[in-house]
């Protein structure tokens, strides 16, 4: 353990990964509650194209990821597309977005040296062990800020998600709150992309929350469980990948999936006993 924490990149990964997982677990709880799983998926695709487009334009990786995610989240909010029944149109658009991402990737690789060939893989599948110092500071602070804002608006947000009509009648500012949530979602997706990659954000944003909702129907307990499971999955995944030379993202997705299966089984057993 000491040996592990003596390494700079492991310490960075534990701190940043923990903060990001905390935010992803909290925001993810609302993603599942509000049935916006596929908005998160779409934002993950956008993050891939955005980060490579940013790099190609000579910007920082973070600028591209955060900029594109927030812009698209707001666009989704204004168009009001929750995507139900329109999955053909949405699927075609996002396949194209990914296609453009591949174009950027290939342009970037040809423009720079061949050494950047694995860059796309790290955007797609995450590179939590390779975080730069500025990413550690920036990632941790934005993740904690996201948590704080999410907790501040958690009460009206719960109300709005569970019973939108009554919430609006009681004076909850629905449009503003929805827009704020989409921005929080975009920021969280952009952070999670650095930890587990654009393709695997489900493992941090959806699976822990779904597991928590299997375990408890009480909202505050569920939120805490969701955040806890996300953090545990990331930390245990990091420890495992220190001892076994497999990709960290593989451990994180597998642990999250195992927890989900266990919660399903637990619920079945509880139902039998009841």
């Amino acid at each position: 353990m000491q040996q592990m924490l003596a390494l700079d990149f492991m310490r960075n990964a534990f701190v940043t990964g923990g903060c990001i997982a905390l935010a992803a677990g909290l925001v993810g709880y609302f993603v599942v509650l509000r049935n916006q799983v596929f908005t998160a998926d779409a934002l993950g695709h956008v993050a891939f194209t955005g980060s490579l487009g940013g790099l190609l334009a000579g910007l920082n990786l973070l600028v591209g990821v955060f900029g594109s995610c927030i812009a698209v989240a707001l666009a989704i909010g204004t168009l009001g597309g929750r995507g139900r029944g329109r999955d053909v149109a949405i699927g075609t658009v996002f396949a194209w977005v990914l296609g453009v991402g591949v174009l950027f990737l290939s342009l970037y690789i040809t423009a720079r040296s061949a050494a950047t060939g694995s860059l796309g893989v790290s955007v797609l599948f995450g590179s939590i062990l390779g975080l730069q110092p500025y990413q550690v500071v920036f990632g941790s602070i934005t993740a904690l800020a996201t948590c704080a804002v999410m907790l501040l608006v958690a009460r009206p947000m719960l109300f709005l998600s569970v019973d939108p009509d009554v919430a609006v009648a009681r004076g909850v500012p629905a449009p503003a709150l929805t827009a704020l949530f989409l921005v929080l979602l975009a920021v969280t997706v952009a952070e999670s992309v650095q930890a587990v990659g654009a393709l695997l954000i489900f493992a941090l944003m959806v699976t822990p929350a779904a597991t928590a909702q299997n375990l408890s129907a009480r909202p505050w307990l569920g939120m805490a469980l969701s955040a806890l499971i996300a953090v545990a999955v990331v930390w245990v995944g990091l420890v495992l990948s220190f001892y076994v030379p497999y990709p960290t993202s593989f451990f994180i997705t597998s642990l999250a999936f195992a927890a989900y299966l266990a919660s399903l089984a637990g619920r079945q057993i509880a139902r039998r006993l009841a």
Partner: protein
Amino acid sequence: MPSWDVVADIQLLLQFHFMQNAFVAGTLVAVLAGAAGYFVVLRGQSFAAHMLSQVGFPGAAAGVLLHVSPVLGLIAFCLAAALGIGLASGQSGRSVDAGHRSESAAVGSILAFSLGLGLLFFRLYAGSAAGIYSFLFGTILGISDRDVELTLAVATISLGALVVIGRPLVFATVDPDVAEARGVNVQLLSIAFLVVLALAVAVTVQIVGTLLIFALLVAPGASALQLTARPGRALALSIVLSLAFTWLGLALAYFTDLPVGFFITSLAFATYVVVRGVNAAATLRSGRLRFVPA
């Protein structure tokens, strides 16, 4: 570089063995994907296609790892997933879709896990980044003679199956209750179609990759159904569009040295946008609102 002399360009395009393979496999894939895609859109199963292709990713990686053809791995994983979807929807009495909360969370969890598994297999093989890209985004380079033979076999079987079940499948899709009353086995048909879909996904991944499957398996069918509601015509149109996307995409990728996935998705997206636009304009001109399935 193309000389804009069509005959010379086609000769230039087909001078290498890998491009001949890509065109043969691409043509077979396009016909199958166009035909299956029509039914996918008609039946509203685009989400199942998305899911099957992502579950296929670790299959392709496992095929590479075990030194058998990646297509074999894809077929095995996609078939298993299709049977899983068939059983799950048979149990719950409705098809798997993205609309339901607990279902979309469950599906999302499975997808992330299967992509993570695929990543592990690729690392175990110690393959280059290019290997992962070609299965995620498609390639024009990596199609071997063996893959072409497998694709031919799969396409023949699947198209044959579609010819047999095509008519009752349209019937069962458009009006399941009446079809059931007329003695059509709706449950069996839907599982048979899922198997055909799994095979179509498995071979389509070779050309456009796991992540861009919508471009060949959904977009042509969706565009065709925007243009005409008549089954025979829409089916033919879907196949023609899918062939056009594939051939143009392969040629553009060859001459520009840019990824084939980009061109095929862009062509598919542009066609879909144009068709929707034309449809909307026609609706406006005729001055009445018409129901257009998304």
